[in-house]
């Protein structure tokens, strides 16, 4: 098997005197959609930020695409930043820029593109993310929540990344919008061939798009496995997660989708 897209070994992070992760290991394979789940406060977002080099771990190593993540090493970080795209929880679009300008930010920062071409590529990405070309001229405050998520996805895809990090992309969306986002993500992942690190609470999303799921609990990744295996896992939290009323409902609808 080829080398993993992300490899985390023996990670320990502490924030504000509180230990968040301890001896955390994680591997994300190339081309897969990995779901990351865990109770509130188990450090899913912290894990993502640590992998992105925004938080420095106390111990452990993180390798992304074969390169060691080290916030001090600017050169490696810049080369990595060109190869990943991030969608933060609330979109984190720059409010003073239009959607199109937002998408162009990474292009202007990392590449030397003529303005007209950058504009065209931005429009392409905006359309790929399921928005209309006209939406590119709007400011983030003029967009609905679902459109903001799509715009943020367009920005994450600006440089055709190898890895896309998504922090709760469907949180706050209505079920229809969330399902559309799932379809969009899966379609793009298939045609563009990127790896996805997906933090979510949305069981429907987990059933619909993920190849494997990593469960965060007790400060580490308890298990990484396809959803069918996790359903049989004996750990009480995991059992409760997939067999609680919401888990059963999501599974039911996923099976209906599969048969229809």
């Amino acid at each position, binding site marked *: 098997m080829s080398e993993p897209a992300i490899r985390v070994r023996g990670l320990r992070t502490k924030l504000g005197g509180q230990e968040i992760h301890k001896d955390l290991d994680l591997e994300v394979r190339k081309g897969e959609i990995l779901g990351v789940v865990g109770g509130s406060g188990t450090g899913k977002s912290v894990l993502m930020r640590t992998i992105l080099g925004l938080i420095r771990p106390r111990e452990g190593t993180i390798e992304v695409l074969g390169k060691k993540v080290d916030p001090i090493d600017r050169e490696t970080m810049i080369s990595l930043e060109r190869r990943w795209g991030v969608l933060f929880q609330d979109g984190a679009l720059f409010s003073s820029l239009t959607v199109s300008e937002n998408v162009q930010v990474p292009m202007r920062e990392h*590449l030397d*593109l003529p303005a007209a*071409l950058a504009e065209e590529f931005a429009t*392409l990405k905006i359309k790929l993310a399921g928005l209309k*070309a006209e939406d*590119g001229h709007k400011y983030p405050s003029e967009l609905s929540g679902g459109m903001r998520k799509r715009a943020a996805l367009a920005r994450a895809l600006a440089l*055709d990344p190898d890895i896309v990090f998504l922090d709760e992309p469907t949180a706050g969306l209505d079920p229809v919008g969330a399902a559309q986002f799932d379809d969009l993500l899966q379609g793009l992942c298939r045609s563009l*061939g990127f790896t996805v690190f997906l933090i979510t609470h949305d069981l429907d999303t987990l059933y619909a798009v993920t190849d494997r799921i990593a469960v965060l609990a007790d400060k580490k990744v308890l298990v990484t496995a396809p959803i069918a295996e996790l359903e049989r896992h004996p750990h009480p939290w995991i059992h409760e997660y997939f067999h609680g009323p919401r888990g059963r409902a999501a599974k039911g609808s996923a099976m209906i989708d599969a048969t229809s």
Partner: protein
Amino acid sequence: MAAKTQVSVTEEGETARVSLAGAWTVAAAADLDSQLRRLRLLKARRATFDLSGIEHLDTAGAWLIRQAAKTLTDGGVTVALAGADQRASALLETVAGVDQSADTPVKAPATVIELLERLGFATAFAVRESRSYLGFLGLTLETAARIALRPHRFRFTSFAFHLEAVGLNALPIVGLISFLIGVVMAYQGATQLRQFGAEIFVVDLVAISVLREIGILLTAIVVAGRSGSAFTAQIGTMKLREEVDAMRALGLDPVEVLVLPRLAALVVAMPILCFFSDLMGLIGGAMMAWIDLDISPETFVRRVQANTSIKHFWVGMVKAPVFAAMIGLVGCYQGLKVKGDAGSVGRLTTRSVVQSIFLVIVVDAVFSIFLSLIDV
């Protein structure tokens, strides 16, 4: 990467073969674009794009290929794509799928029209804002009247808290600034008046200007900057977190709960602050007069008592509650206008300070004219 030729063309009569090679990614897009532009010069009627030499293709590369093919097709050339592997064709298809809907470019209006448009917006905004202020003033007065009839509904705890925040805590900064301005005025006055041998009039200069204008203006400006802005930021943050809506839903009146205690605290605190500011301004002036002109504090006090009428003090003081009410109203009104994102809190806080200082100066000028007309 830039120098490498990634587009090579072989023409055989009517048919051209366009071979694409290397990395077709966004990083090389500028170069690829200019290379593809040369294809417009093709004379052939049929063109085949050979993609088999492409090592790496992303959406940008796929878009460029599609765009080039489209330009040729529009020029009457039959275009075929060949040699694309499975991934490449999937990408080309994805890009083609979204590319059909044409972009409608937004036309920027001419500069003059834009200027007029802005002027119109600003005028309409000013008119609307003035009307809303009147409305808000009416709402506040109505609520105040209602509270006056049922005083037990007045929020004394909140009032006391804000009295401390806008009154007591503002004393040091108001005092310091007034003291320093007193010093500056005495010093500047001394330099000028010494030329006429009229040094003693420094006392009158400092006393009249501090009591009539400087004391209250400084107080009002400091209060607008530190308390008016605080009102906007506090209420604005609550508005943003839907606390104000929650209040309404629970049957609490935001004007009664948020606006009135703040306004009352400011109206009570401002005259006290103004009095303190007058005092510190006079002390500053007296000190400078003593150091620079050898006018002893005793002489200073006696001269003030003899030559400066008490009416000057009242002219300054009477403005204090008026300015307080204006600053409080502007601060609370702008706070309640916050909506949408966190950026609007910052924007409206700035506006609150600018508007209240502007209003204070305008009303001060009105006071000045009015009081001189009635000979005070």
